[in-house]
């Protein structure tokens, strides 16, 4: 009971503490923190457009959060979300350009999304395979693969796919574009929020069911908690490592649909802007629980966009600090709690 209460209280306490710390920094920047926070709220949740921006960012972060959370269930730390999103984004754009323009809308979206998931999955699976076959630490291999993917995508973009004298590809076919909420039900006007958000929420639900309600999920959690015992119980831990990495990579790949199919409609250099890394923080704050990730992603989405809205008064880096301090606080709190 105590435990459960603490699990909920720790992240909340961490967020409040982080906001207080950043208030100090806002003051040293010569601004009134109260005014800044007020302004931030009115320009984010207080406005239709701002809310849409947050929803858009939250969508990506939910998926990159899941990309970390799923492998975490088998005690693997997937740091490669960034590379996996990138691979997904590139695949979605490339397929979206190459599809014949008369492809029906649902089919086009499905094909592009699947390609993105397969690309993200493949990158993650490579790290999983290195782990199972050669015992390579997945933290190192996923980080390294980030560079590989980035460089390879950069090469393909510059030499083969970019529209001359730009750093982006041509637009994907119209039927592969995921509609904005604005154009369908007229909310969150002009904001990039699109129907990918539904993908993200569905992904959370599916992951939750897979992990906590299925026999495979039971085996996977057992293998993550006690690999040795799992072996005695006839569970193939290696298969679960591969499966979890593949699923995580697929989630990261899916995150790219929000960016490519839903918003930009092309691939450009720097498109992913670190959302893979923020996904790590999102997952940590939510204790890698697939449903809590929604709340955690919302907080980070808010801080990300909120930082931009007040960038004219205080550097947005302060809000990156809030994110980092929050994570540190959660880690410290859970550790001290374990010891007590």
């Amino acid at each position: 009971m105590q435990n459960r209460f603490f699990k909920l209280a720790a992240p909340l306490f961490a967020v409040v503490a982080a906001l207080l710390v950043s208030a100090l920094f806002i003051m040293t920047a010569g601004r009134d923190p109260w005014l800044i926070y007020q302004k931030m709220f009115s320009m984010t949740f207080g406005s239709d457009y701002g809310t849409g921006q947050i929803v858009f960012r939250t969508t990506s972060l939910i998926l990159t959060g899941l990309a970390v959370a799923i492998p975490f269930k088998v005690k693997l730390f997937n740091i490669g979300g960034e590379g996996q999103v990138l691979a997904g984004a590139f695949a979605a754009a490339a397929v979206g350009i190459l599809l014949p323009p008369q492809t029906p809308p649902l089919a086009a979206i499905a094909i592009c999304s699947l390609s993105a998931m397969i690309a993200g999955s493949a990158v993650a699976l490579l790290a999983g395979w290195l782990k199972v076959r050669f015992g390579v630490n997945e933290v190192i291999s996923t980080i390294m693969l980030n560079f590989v993917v980035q460089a390879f995508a950069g090469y393909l973009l510059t030499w083969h796919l970019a529209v001359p004298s730009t750093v982006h590809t041509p637009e994907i076919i119209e039927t592969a574009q995921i509609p904005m909420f604005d154009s369908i039900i007229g909310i969150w006007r002009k904001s990039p929020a699109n129907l990918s958000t539904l993908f993200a929420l569905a992904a959370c639900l599916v992951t939750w069911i897979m992990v906590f309600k299925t026999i495979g999920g039971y085996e996977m959690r057992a293998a993550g908690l006690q690999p040795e015992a799992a072996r005695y119980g006839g569970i193939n831990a290696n298969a679960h490592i591969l499966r979890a990495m593949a699923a995580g990579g697929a989630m990261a790949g899916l995150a790219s649909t929000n960016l490519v199919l839903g918003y930009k409609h092309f691939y450009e250099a720097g498109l992913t802007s670190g959302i893979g890394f923020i996904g790590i923080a999102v997952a940590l704050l939510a204790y890698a629980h697939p449903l809590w990730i929604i709340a955690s992603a919302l907080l980070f989405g808010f801080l990300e966009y909120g930082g931009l809205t007040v960038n004219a008064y205080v550097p947005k880096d302060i809000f990156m600090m809030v994110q980092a301090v929050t994570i540190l606080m959660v880690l410290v709190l859970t550790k001290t709690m374990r010891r007590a």
Partner: protein
Amino acid sequence: MKRSAEETNILSLSGVSKQFGELWANKDISLEISSGSIHAIVGENGAGKSTLTKMIYGLLTPTSGSISVRGQSVRFTSPRQAITAGIGMVHQHFMLIPDLTATENIVLGDEGSTLFAPLKKKEAARRIQSIAENHGLVIDPGALISELSVGEEQRVEILKLLYREAEILILDEPTAVLTPSETEQLFTTLKSLRKEGKTVILITHKLDEVLSVSDMVSVMRRGRIVATEPTGSVTKSDLAHLMVGRNVLLRVENPPEEPGEVVLKVSHAGFMDVKGRQRLNNLSFEVKAGEIYGIAGVEGNGQNELLTLLWGMAEPGCMISGSVTVNNIPLGDRNSAEVASIGVSLVPEDRLKHAVISDFPVDNNLIFGRHREKKFHRFAGFNAKAVMDYTNTMVDQYDIRYDMQSNPPLSNLSGGNQQKIVLAREIDRPGLKLLILAQPTRGVDIGAIEMIHKKIIEARDKGVAILLISAELDEIISLSSRIGCMYKGSIRHEFSMEEVRKGRSCAQDFEKEVGMFIT
């Protein structure tokens, strides 16, 4: 000649209590330990023995009450202070550094020189040698700890205390890891220490040992001391009664068995591990349906490798020869799930590491390893009702005690209840033909042992072939139909059904006879 209490009582506790959260681990403990005696403290797991010793040794501080050494009131906040006061402790799990020599380990923390001065190793070694000779603690001071046997490691631990001139020695379950002959050697040492005026506090749950070596015995139950008596005036069953709080059958009723067909047949099995050491050597034996085949042996004589072989867990790179069949089906390269599927169950030795997921609740653990059985399934998930019904049945049948309301993780349950869960799950396996039990009552309290033994006999009478591997000769003798003595990877001697039945009537002599074949 009558001496005053301050003179004879080297350690006294009065009204000592320790509280952890809501729980009183120790409550109102008063104890007088007289100088130059061997004082045994017995009690079941969780009775509060460890908490008590940790307070005496300064690892924990009492919530209330007072401790005094030689009549002086003390309040230790760290073991260092306890050591200065002449108290030393040998923990159940040794605190030695494997890459250092015996001498280096013994002087560690008491080097007698400053940080940059040369270490007087020769002098230390000489002193250790003389202490060792006085007390029959034979070791090579220059040997690396990693090269020593468990018994030798324990001697190093005791020497460590004597080197620091400890007057009070606390030994926590010292015989758990020893062979019968090593145990006797240890007791000789303890008696020689007593002669020299040292005081020994012996924590144990083995009642025979208490009776054979101690002067006084205190019994703990649920955090309290329920009796302190001179050992001469109590019997084994008195102690068991005090520990559990009710009458217990120390030896389970074992009606005659009627063995059937051969179920497990191991013939000429050989096992060479990855490092090229021959662990099993031409090992052959059979287990019939409806009998319990006991394998007696000191740990490390191939029992683990035998289990590995039977459960399909051999690492790649091991050389395996010979054959193993269950009901004439060769096990071959089957993995554990495939072995289980032909009706084999295993209760592994290290329960927490291999048999359960300690963070999972009871119901999840009761299906662990059997979660692929169709009866628990519904679509891709579990059938909550089937699992719940099964859980309730098992909890009832095996008297598994836990707080069902909060459904806690398994790690919150006592060792006995954890083991009951594992046993329930494995005995209940549909189509069970062979049950393999490794140290089935290790770390389990007396009350639970009684029930576990009963369930094993019950399974035997239903026609299950049972292979029992245990380091407790007592257990082997009281349960087995036949006994194989395992030594250096093969069966050195086998006692027939008649011999075991006869031996059971004069167990102590029979224990010695079995003991001869395993050392």
